[in-house]
């Protein structure tokens, strides 16, 4: 990867009518510029007659912010009857350096019987959950939801401190003491 192919922010990549702009680029008075440091990539358009899209991708993982609809992985910090507080540690595949705070409101835990959800039967502090961002939420936290089958608890320790394995969509079993605990589990991929 010769360093010359790397572009820096502000560098001209082409004119507006030549490409469509992909991530890592922006347009300013009809000139396409790079907006991050990375390698310039040009993908030919799906059907022809369309312009190829130009984008800049970073070598190192791009510190992404949680956006609406992004799948995040986080650890449950606190649980109270109205919502569970989650520290978002990874957005999609990339782990983020600093934790963002998100909450899973009790009405967003599952899609069915929203009002009969007992949050203590779904999450416990220390569980690792996979959730989806449904809104930017308020100043302090993002609003998350686990209302799909592949969302929910993906790692939890039992009271005895041993990792548990899911045995149904709402039960997990401790491998040592065989006790069953209630969780809103994610369907194993």
């Amino acid at each position, binding site marked *: 990867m010769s360093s010359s192919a790397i572009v820096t922010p502000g560098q001209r990549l082409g004119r507006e009518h030549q490409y469509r702009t992909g991530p890592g680029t922006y347009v300013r008075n009809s000139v396409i510029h790079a907006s991050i440091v990375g390698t310039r990539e040009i993908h030919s358009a799906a059907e022809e007659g369309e312009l190829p899209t130009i984008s800049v991708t970073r070598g190192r*993982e791009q510190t992404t912010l949680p956006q609406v609809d992004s799948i995040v*992985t986080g*650890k449950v910090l606190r649980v109270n009857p109205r919502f569970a507080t989650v520290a978002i*540690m*990874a957005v999609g*595949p*990339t*782990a983020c*350096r*600093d934790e963002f705070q998100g909450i899973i409101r009790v009405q967003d835990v599952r899609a069915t019987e929203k009002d009969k959800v007992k949050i203590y039967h779904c999450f416990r502090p220390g569980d*690792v959950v*996979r959730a989806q961002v449904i809104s930017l939420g308020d100043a302090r936290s993002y609003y998350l939801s686990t209302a799909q089958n592949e969302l929910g608890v*993906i*790692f939890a320790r039992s009271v005895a401190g041993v*990792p548990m*394995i*899911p045995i149904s969509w709402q039960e997990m079993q401790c*491998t040592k003491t065989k006790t069953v605990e209630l969780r809103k589990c*994610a369907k*194993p*991929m």
Partner: protein
Amino acid sequence: MTSPYAFSAETFKRVQPSEYYRKFLEQDVRPDGRAFSQFRKTILNAGCISTANGSAVVRIGDTTVVCGIKAEVAEPTLDQPAAGYFVPNVELGPLCSAKFRPGPPGDLAQVVSERLRKLSEEYIAFEELCIEPEQAAWVVYADLVCLNHDGNVLDACQLALLAALKNARLPEAQIGEDGIVRAGEAFTRAITIKRPILAATFGLYEGRSLLADPNASEEPLLDSLVTVCVDDAEHLHAVWKSNGGRCSLEQLQRCVELARIRFTELSALLESSAADQ
């Protein structure tokens, strides 16, 4: 029983740090590939800041500390009229790590500063810092700014402090009849160091494995931290053991031996940096 969900290595390290670390230690290796008793690569260069009387930059692995010495004059205290001052202070600001907040020094910075001050009582010749008993004495301010905190900041600070003191030069000063201290143009006077004292820090993981020079990701997982300070005559000058874990006398003595080996490495580095001035 591996959990059915696959994590990327990076996410697994963030979500389950102790699990991630234990998996490495079970194979007697550390995440950054070092052996248990191996210290990180240490780089030292002295005298790189012209505005300071003496300075040094130390890098142990990624941990980077800059030490600057500035000397000023003040009246000695009444109960020690013939002694100068030595004022070491460590800045662990938000620049060097995400876990420090802006504002006055936090707990760790204050503990490191106090330990450096305590050690200095063993190697600084305070009486030589006195210009005129009861009237004027040198105040040697040693300020250490941490640029990158990747664990084990005390070893880096002590090495940077010693290198900066060796590199420091003060002007010749005398006090006139009018009581005003005047200093010569040339910076020629050195600060005498009775004996070089250097620190080596070790961590105990679950009471068993002894790990030298823990970095920032290892420090929170170790249940005891042992720091041993030795001098060139095989004497010990400080042994600190903190964090709640248990440590036997044998493990402590093992740390002392490793600290002695580490001392020879570092003092060689110290000599070479002072030589090429």
